[in-house]
């Protein structure tokens, strides 16, 4: 094995390099030529069809020329998937159970080698993977490339850390007794991923599971199954034994079947709070061959940023914009509630509020295949409708202080930024995650009140403060209930290894991804005690 270098994040692509921009343009062209193909179920390395099919669409465009299926005549079909049936899932579970011993025996070094190869393949396909993200989930160029880099980071970090986790750690020992703590794989993982990071969070679950010796049954998000398929393909092309990864697209029925399957040892899930609670319940009620199922959820957020009087105006405005409107607020870490310390007439709240509104007016929306557009469409019609419904409901309580006319550019699901500043803070709608470009502004008399307001929702994922005072940073750090706290920077964009990510309360179970401890979820700890005494003699 090569020397194990310290983990280092994947270098971010330099867009000033023309070669990189051209490579991205070429990748977009290539990927466009692949639209409308079928992405079959993968079990044991075999690809199979099923009766029921469904589609993923480019959310930011319409194009009547591709309309062979009559499903939605106005949209580009990105791909066709087939819903895995109960038999498929049973078969996938059986294959996983069979391979588990073999894969465990392979040893950490061999596993690492295969996964590093997968990371290398992702590097080679960086632009292609990013291009799929551009079309299937409407990510801007930079957001898309960043996601692929994050996926590579997950593999690199987990593989390095797996060497440590599979070591043998002596515990308190006696002369006559040798005690060791070690780890063994738990068993097959059901990896249920989400559409907003369909590559990075798929790879996160798959890589963490595989390095720990656990096969993966992967259900991609319905809206972004092509991205999920591409991620799986990288592992398979790297030589990971095909029995170890099953690709099982579908809707809730597939998720439910996986969660309740007796052959599943743990469930790694990213998605909504409602789904998370339901999965937790089902999993607890259906223990299987591997005992009580493990469940680690990454759920939603309702995140707040507090702005204190000493905040630096221009950088706060820029970072607030980034936190709220980056990827249209469709990140669980995105900002929803902006809380100023002071009255609306004070210098900082007034200037930053004006600045945020003016900056929001300036955002340009369009199809992300054009790099000029950093702001694109919502993921699908359901999301579009849901966001509009929430906006209408909020309007019953207050008029927005800024609203960009809602519009569908090219019939994509575009919703412009909307800012409310007079919503009662404890209103039911304020407590919910909107997952769209809606910002709510509140005012608090003191930092203490601002923190109370920030903590007044059921979620605890990300949050931040803008201030030049260490004492205020310290107070907020101690008292804001969040899994990820940031001072004087955007509250989105956690980096693997640097900012382990995850929340508590209704945002998660307090555990993190993107850090070594994540691997514990896929492992059972085993204590080994060896008695060395025979008839009063020590036998080594």
């Amino acid at each position, binding site marked *: 094995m090569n020397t194990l270098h310290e983990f280092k994040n994947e270098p971010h692509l330099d*867009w*000033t390099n023309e070669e990189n921009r051209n490579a991205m343009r070429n990748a977009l062209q290539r990927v466009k030529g692949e639209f409308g193909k079928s992405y079959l179920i993968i079990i044991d390395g075999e690809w199979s069809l099923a009766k029921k099919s469904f589609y993923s669409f480019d959310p930011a465009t319409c194009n009547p020329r591709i309309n062979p299926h009559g499903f939605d005549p106005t949209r580009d079909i990105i791909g066709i998937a087939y819903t895995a049936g109960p038999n498929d899932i049973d078969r996938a579970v059986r294959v996983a159970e069979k391979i588990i011993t073999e894969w465990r025996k392979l040893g950490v070094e061999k596993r690492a080698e295969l996964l590093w190869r997968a990371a290398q393949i992702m590097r080679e396909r960086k632009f292609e993977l990013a291009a799929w993200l551009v079309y299937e989930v409407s990510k801007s160029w930079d957001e898309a490339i960043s996601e692929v880099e994050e996926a590579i980071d997950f593999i690199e970090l987990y593989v390095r850390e797996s060497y440590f986790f599979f070591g043998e750690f002596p515990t308190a020992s006696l002369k006559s007794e040798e005690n060791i703590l070690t780890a063994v794989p738990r068993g097959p993982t059901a990896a249920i991923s989400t559409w907003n990071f369909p590559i990075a969070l798929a790879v996160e679950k798959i890589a963490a599971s595989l390095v720990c010796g656990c096969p993966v049954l992967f259900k991609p998000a319905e809206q972004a199954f092509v991205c999920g398929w591409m991620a799986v393909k990288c592992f398979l092309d790297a030589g990971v034994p095909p029995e170890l990864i099953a690709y099982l697209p579908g809707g809730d029925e597939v998720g439910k079947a996986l969660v309740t399957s007796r052959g599943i040892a743990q469930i790694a899930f990213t998605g909504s709070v409602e789904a998370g609670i339901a999965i937790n319940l089902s999993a607890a009620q259906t223990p299987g061959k591997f005992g009580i199922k493990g469940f680690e959820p990454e759920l939603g957020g309702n995140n707040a940023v507090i702005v204190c009087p000493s905040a630096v105006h221009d950088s706060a405005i820029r970072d607030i914009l980034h936190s709220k409107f980056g990827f249209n607020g469709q990140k669980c870490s995105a900002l929803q509630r902006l809380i100023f310390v002071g009255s609306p007439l004070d210098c900082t709240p007034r200037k930053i509020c004006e600045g945020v509104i003016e900056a929001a007016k300036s955002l340009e929306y369009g199809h992300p295949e054009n790099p*000029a557009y950093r702001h694109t469409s919502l993921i699908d019609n359901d999301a579009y409708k849901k966001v509009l419904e929430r906006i209408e409901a909020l309007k019953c309580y207050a008029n927005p202080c800024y609203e960009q006319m809602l519009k569908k550019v090219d019939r994509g699901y575009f919703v412009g930024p909307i800012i409310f500043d007079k919503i009662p803070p404890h209103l039911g709608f304020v407590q919910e995650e909107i997952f769209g470009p809606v910002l709510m502004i509140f005012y608090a008399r003191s930092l203490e009140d601002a923190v109370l307001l920030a903590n007044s929702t059921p979620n605890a994922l990300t949050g931040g403060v803008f201030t030049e005072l260490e004492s205020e940073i310290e107070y907020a750090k101690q008292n804001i209930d969040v899994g990820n706290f940031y001072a004087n920077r955007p509250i989105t964009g956690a980096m693997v290894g640097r900012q382990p990510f995850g929340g508590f309360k209704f945002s998660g179970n307090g555990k993190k991804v993107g850090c070594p401890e994540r691997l514990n979820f896929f492992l059972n700890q085993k204590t080994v005690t060896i008695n060395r005494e025979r008839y009063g003699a020590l036998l080594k």
Partner: protein
Amino acid sequence: MWKFPDPIGWIPPGDAGQALMRFIIASLNLEDAQKTAHIFREILEPYKNNLGWHFKCLMLLAKFFPHGFNALFRIGTSLFFEKRFMAANGDTGIVLAVSRTSRQGLKTNFDILGEAVTSEKQAERYVQSYLALIRQLITCMPPHEISISLKPSAFYSQIQAAAPEHSAEVIAKRLEPIIALLKKIGGHAYLDAEESEMLEVQKLVFKILYLKYGSAVRFVLQAYLKSSFHTLKWLVSINNPDDPIHFRLVRGAYWDHECMRAERLNWDETPVYTDKDETDLMYHTLIWQGMRHGLVVNLGTHNIISIANSINSYISMRAWGFECSIPEFQMLHGMPGVKEFGKILCQKGYSVRIYSPVIYPEGETREGMAYLVRRILENQSQMSFLVQHSGTKMREAVGILQKIPARKDLPDIIKQIRIPKEAA
């Protein structure tokens, strides 16, 4: 004769100095005197042993007389820092700045300071401010001498590295009224260099405007960028010898930012040279190559060696028979040595232009805060390797400068050493 000490020298080096900068930034947005005094004490308390007596007095004042502290601090900041590094604020200030520099035989280049542009309204306001500034300048100086600096990022809030063509198109369109007006009156604008991320945008905007308005628009080239030689070659490739490209050659002002950004993005290499000697070498190479290819090189430097070297380069180039211009020397308002160097160079017949950051129309100091902090930090420590002169070094520098030949003597020197062009 006793001279009032330079307050920059009062700022302690290292963490204490940075804490003070942090306080200055934070205090600008505070209206309440008590809060300002409280913050001063909180930020600087951990460094009280490293502070000079001036700040210790301020600390006491902040504790017992917060209103007095607030008033004194704001007056002090305005007198010592704003007035020193910002050339003017509003119409009257502009007129005074022009008259001050022209009395000394110096020319001026105006740059309107401002907070980072985050909206299109601000970008439009910048355009209007520059147009108003030019109109104001027409009333107080010869129009053909009007010179301004424009930061591309100030003219488009959605500027981005991944879409340089689009960003450049929007910026060029927005800058057109300014450049057209300057072209009409014979003035010019420098398209300022910013972070390396924006280099492509800067180049494309320049190309669009240069092809249409010629040397009414001018380029700024940063020698500390590893890509600077490549950029020079690109300038040569689009140069029109009938109306050659003018460029201001600077070492670069965002060195710390570039290094931190490279670290944040996990780049193994920084886009800038991390060794001062490499930057110096590239600076001199660019002077030489710029002149050799018929571009008009203007030096944005306070470095005496660079100034002397550029005159040598000019003599050599002319001696070899290359057509090139005598460089203009451009210096930052408020930096050490500017007055002394400017005076000597003017006496020797060289053109000296003072880069003058201004707030226009009249406004708040906060708008120039990023610039102000950068200048103070550069002046008070070795944080950036680009600052050269202080104390005895200054006297040596003046001595060297006095030995530079006068402009009127250059033709004779060139004649004496004329050599065949092929030797170049």
